[in-house]
């Protein structure tokens, strides 16, 4: 089964890349943007077909490697 994970920076962590992207969008004429935060997206294809077990495993992967919980949050966004 395939599982998708999104990793985002926590609110109080400075995201200079997001800021520059925001400024650039602004310069391109997208003036309605309030804020841009850059994150990471993973697609994990696993042999595990039980959704509950697969989700638990991916959560463990997030905690141990994919995210650094001091600065990042993770969210499992899709299971299929």
């Amino acid at each position, binding site marked *: 089964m395939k599982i998708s994970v999104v990793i985002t920076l926590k609110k109080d962590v*400075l995201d*200079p*890349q997001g800021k520059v992207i925001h400024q650039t969008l602004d310069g391109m004429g997208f003036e309605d943007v309030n804020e841009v935060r850059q994150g990471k997206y993973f697609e994990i294809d696993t042999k595990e077909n039980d959704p509950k077990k697969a989700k638990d495993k991916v959560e463990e992967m997030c905690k141990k490697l994919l995210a650094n919980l001091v600065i990042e949050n993770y969210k499992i966004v899709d299971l299929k």
Partner: protein
Amino acid sequence: MKSSVITFPGSNCDRDMDVALKKFGFKNKMVWHNDAELPKSDLIVLPGGFSYGDYLRCGSMASKSKIMKSVVNFANSGGMVMGICNGFQILVETGLVPGVLLRNKYLEFICRNVFVKINNKSNNYFNNIKNDVLEFHIAHNEGNYFCTKDQLKEIEDNEQVAINYCDENGRIEEQFNPNGSIKNIAGIFNIEKNVLGMMPHPERMIDNCLSGEDGSIFFNNLINNLK
């Protein structure tokens, strides 16, 4: 005194560190990341570079490599472990020292000499050193030290700040902060002070023909403290 430098795929300051350690009297061995056991050592060094191409987060892959289990055990039993630059990033990813290293505040790779003030000398790294301020070299893209408010309080309460960015007179101010680090932090200890992670490279300051001798002061002092 015996030392070991760990080489990861993408390390590029490992041989510089080898030269520096030997110059000041260490019997140094190079250890490959995929080895399981450490040679008998008084000091382990995680060198600078771009381990695993900085994939995912700097130091994250290297922190899971085979040798790191032995390094963590060595550190937890009181052994001296020093991480420089990428080695510091690896240390924070293992959790041996608190916090993380974010991308530099102004999004630029910084490569220049800086001054650092020694904040805590009650440890084997800086004990007996006469200088309060040292000139070291930095070369990094992700050296912006960050930690949570709770962690910062704990770090300060336990006197874990090793060195801060400053000017040549030791003034610690925002204008002398090259990368946006919280409180100008350039290096951090674990609680017991046997593990040190720092962004500056002392091994690049061991010869006047290169750029200075303040690294020589550091290494001479270090080996004398370990004897």
